[in-house]
């Protein structure tokens, strides 16, 4: 079962997700070791594969480094649920085929450590710990198409 790692702060930025001192590599597994390091040094240690991050508004603001998405994905995070996303991070995630969930409601209702189950197609988060059922609007169709194709480059190859 996926556990929620909750940071209710707004504006969690790319420098916190993956500090620039680690940008001398683009290896996903290397980056993953330092995921969220400047925000929560214990993050990687406490994470199990398939867990989710829950955060406030404007998640991923700052740099255009796709390394932020790779670090999160490489660490084993299944999705990020946030009030809103910064636009380059949002694009980068879609381009990499990584799901994001935008839902202020979910951010308000999910507590740290809650067990959650997500149906991406139907747009439903079930919080098994509290028994809540939270609906969200899935990503727009064009974005889902890119994600289903396995990212933007595969999508382009397919449509050419």
């Amino acid at each position, binding site marked *: 079962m996926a556990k929620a790692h909750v940071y209710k702060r*707004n*504006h969690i*930025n790319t*420098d*916190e997700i993956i*500090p*620039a*001192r680690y*940008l*001398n*590599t*683009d290896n996903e597994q290397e980056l993953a070791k330092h995921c969220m390091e*400047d*925000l929560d040094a214990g993050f990687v240690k406490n994470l199990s594969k398939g867990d989710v991050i829950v955060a406030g*508004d*404007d998640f991923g*603001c*700052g*740099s*255009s*480094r*796709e*390394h932020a*998405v790779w670090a999160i994905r490489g660490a084993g995070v299944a999705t990020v649920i946030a009030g*809103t996303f*910064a*636009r*380059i991070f949002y*694009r*980068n995630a879609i*381009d*990499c085929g990584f799901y994001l969930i935008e839902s202020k409601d979910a951010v308000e209702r999910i507590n740290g450590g809650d067990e959650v189950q997500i149906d991406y197609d139907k747009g439903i988060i079930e919080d098994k710990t509290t028994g809540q059922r939270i609906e969200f609007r899935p990503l727009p169709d*064009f974005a889902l198409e890119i994600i289903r194709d396995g*990212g*933007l*480059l*595969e999508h*382009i*190859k397919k449509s050419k």
Partner: protein
Amino acid sequence: MGMTITEKILARASGNKTVKAGDLINAKIDVVMCHDITTPAAISMLIEKGIDKVFDKNKIVVTPDHFQPAKDIKSAELHKRLDEWARRHKIRYYYKLGRAGVCHALLPEQGHIRPGEVIVGGDSHTCTYGAFAAFSTGIGSTDLAASIATGELWFRVPESIKFVLNGKLPKGVYSKDVILAVITRIGVDGALYKAMEFVGPALKDMSMEARMTITNMAIEAGAKNGVIGFDATTKKYLARHLKDKKAYKVFESDADTEYSSVEEFDCSKLEPMVAMPHLPSNAKPISQCKGMAMDQAYIGSCTNGRIEDLRIVAKIFKGKEVKIRTIIVPATPTIWKQADDEGLFDVFYKAGCVISAPTCGACLGGFMGILAAGEKCISTTNRNFVGRMGSPKSEVYLASPATAAASAIEGKLVDPRKYI
């Protein structure tokens, strides 16, 4: 209903007569900017996917800048991958060490930015080029790979917010102070997904360099792009710098355009501003924060590392010595040479500063001036996030070159106007 300048540029680029905010379009790219952090990954992706090609070797501009000259073995490997790829594809505008500079200072200076065009770059501050009545935006490595291979990219046409900059800037107050005040009013996500269109009389008196400082920081309010209309100042700069002298297309917003909101600023009432840690939107007028002790001053970056900035700093430093470590980073080799020719280096040397080769360097905590835990840096850069310039326990204070210079002399935050 009329169209904004951003909509008009995107309509042209997508082959549409009109587009409106919210439309999903496929736009042709005129220039793709590539540097050493995000491009090597894009290259690897292209090779891995079996689409290792470039859409037009004349429309891709490559300059290593973030960690150049290579700061360690790993960054040397990044540079090597970039170099091998640029040579293999015979990229026409590949600026190697010695010609390379901080990308957003280098591309306009070397004449790659033209009004009406669409520029993308693997760097969030690519929005800088909007100062030339162009559409430009930052992208990640996958988008970069797609742009390099196909010369096209999908966009959602953004809504626009209009910022009216009224009045005349007082002495000692600069475009950096304006943009810090703008971001502080609307917040770091105040323009999320949107275009920030700057208009108004205060812009008239600003050089292209000063205008670039404004559009450079549009991303710090979450914007997709920042844009400033074309005028005589733009024309004059382009006449001096453009590589390709063929006619460019000038677009302007229609008078009956609807904006998602309009923000008015009286620039004549502005004070020098300093953004407190850890957000660019935490700016305070200098009168409310002066006296705070600093450990380092950093003058450089794509925001404020241009010749005009160095001249302002040298004027303040002339005949004085700095109290704290002060690092000066001319953004490009041309700026470096110009500063030397104008005698600015002599002033910097006598004041006790160190002068670096062009690099993004410590702005993003790379090298050339990293901060230890507990240290405070007054910096002319664009971000003051936690750990941005070094230790997660260090602090970055953003300000204009004048404020940074004056603060370097006294070792604390001071109002630069007494030195001007």
